[in-house]
């Protein structure tokens, strides 16, 4: 479990986060939602210590991440996988080498075993056979999936995904969601996902945290989304007239029945 306590973060006089306290549980996907610029990426980078908070703390279990020295932070990070919003694949390595890199760095497996694991991971994201291509030679959506494969290769205990399905077609996007969900359940991972994809929210939103103006505006799960009368949530989720109508119909039906 990861817990944040009163997290503040400013860049100069831009106060991005103004006191975020939240819990992210193991074994189910935790979603951070919010409009563009709400601070989702900043929060995710704080969770893993790429930024230091101006105030507040992040706890992994009982350990405060920011009280650790570099060496202990690294030992936590070896249990972390992360998909960056811009993928961050190493562009001078092939796809296969990208996925193999964490194993090269931290395991003593033989090359054959490592390559077998690379194939396994690529298969997991439905991308088998592209080992020898460079990231610039595959599409954006494929890069995203390679990014997920690389994040999963060492079987992390914590998984952070920054918009795993932005730029993917609806079908693939659902596939990716299911994949992340499945891995999370199976390996009891603490997974934190940034998204503004409504399909994801309604599909895998077991623990949803809505950010607005640097604060937590709402928390709950997908079943509570439709019924909540939280104004911010309503504005965010039902921004499109189509969804708004869908919801009104649903509410009407419920009242009628």
């Amino acid at each position: 479990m990861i817990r944040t306590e009163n997290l503040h973060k400013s860049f100069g006089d831009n106060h991005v986060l103004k006191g975020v306290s939240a819990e992210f549980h193991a074994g189910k996907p935790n979603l951070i939602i919010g409009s563009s610029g709400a601070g989702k990426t900043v929060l995710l980078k704080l969770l893993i210590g790429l930024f230091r908070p101006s105030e507040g703390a992040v706890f992994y279990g009982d350990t405060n991440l920011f009280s650790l020295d570099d060496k202990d932070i690294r030992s936590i990070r070896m249990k972390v996988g992360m998909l960056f919003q811009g993928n961050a694949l190493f562009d001078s390595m092939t796809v296969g080498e990208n996925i193999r890199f964490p194993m090269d760095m931290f395991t003593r497996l033989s090359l054959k075993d490592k390559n077998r694991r690379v194939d396994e991971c690529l298969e997991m994201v439905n991308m088998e056979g592209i080992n020898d291509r460079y990231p610039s030679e595959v599409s954006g959506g494929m890069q995203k999936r390679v990014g997920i494969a690389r994040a999963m290769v060492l079987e992390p205990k914590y998984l952070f995904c920054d918009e795993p399905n932005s730029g993917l077609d609806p079908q693939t996007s659902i596939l990716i969601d299911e994949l992340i969900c499945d891995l999370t359940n199976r390996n009891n991972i603490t997974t934190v996902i940034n998204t503004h994809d409504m399909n994801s929210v309604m599909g895998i939103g077991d623990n949803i945290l809505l950010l607005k103006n640097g604060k937590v505006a709402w928390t709950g799960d997908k079943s509570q989304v439709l019924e909540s009368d939280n104004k911010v949530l309503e504005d965010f989720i039902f921004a499109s007239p189509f969804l708004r109508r869908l919801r009104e119909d649903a509410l009407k039906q419920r009242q009628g029945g």
Partner: protein
Amino acid sequence: MLIDTFLYNFGQYILLLKSAIAKPERFSMYYKETVRQMDAIGVGSVFIVLLISVFIGMVTAVQFADQLGDSFIPSYYIGYIVRDITIIEMAPTITCLVLAGKVGSNLAAEIGGMRQKEHIDAMEIMGVNTAAYLIMPKVIAAVLVIPLLVAISAFVSIIGGYLATVLPGSISHTEYVLGLRSFFVPRYVFIMFVKAGVFAFLLTSVSCYFGYYVKGGSIELGEASTSAVVVSNVLILLFDFIIALLLT
């Protein structure tokens, strides 16, 4: 203001070096990276070093020959002077100034690009000590390879001096060689290697520093690359002076 920036950068540079000195996560990965860098820095720079060295030797020889003119100094001194000046000063200093331009800007741009594209963050997340992995192999490779380049440079410069004076007939083959073999001080070769090693360390570590902390976009990347070269060059000349004071 200026002093502020200097102290800030100096402190950050020292801290970066401190975290770069660490036990490798996986020795073979560091080894592979070091060999790759030795190839890039060493083999990749041989041609340019050969080229400038010939000219260094030719210029030194021709100008000293002119200064000798009709004086009473015997003309075999040309060989002697070319040998000592290239070994003690020209080969290490000019080679490293040129390498700061070639290798330094390259390293700053490479590491800076990785910073901007979040590659460094991605490695940090995996638990890699990026300061160590990205900097140590480059510094080690440079400190091993650049002294060799400098030795080659000194050798080729001496040949350059020969070409520029013996071929046109200013002095004879025998005189030049006699000069080369006169008054040899082995300590000068030692000084050459000390300079080469120190300059190699400076130019790689400083360039890596400027790349590692780059922010913003392509303009800042260009600026970092320029700063890497300018600061390396200034430091090389400063330490040239310090080493000269200490060792001669």
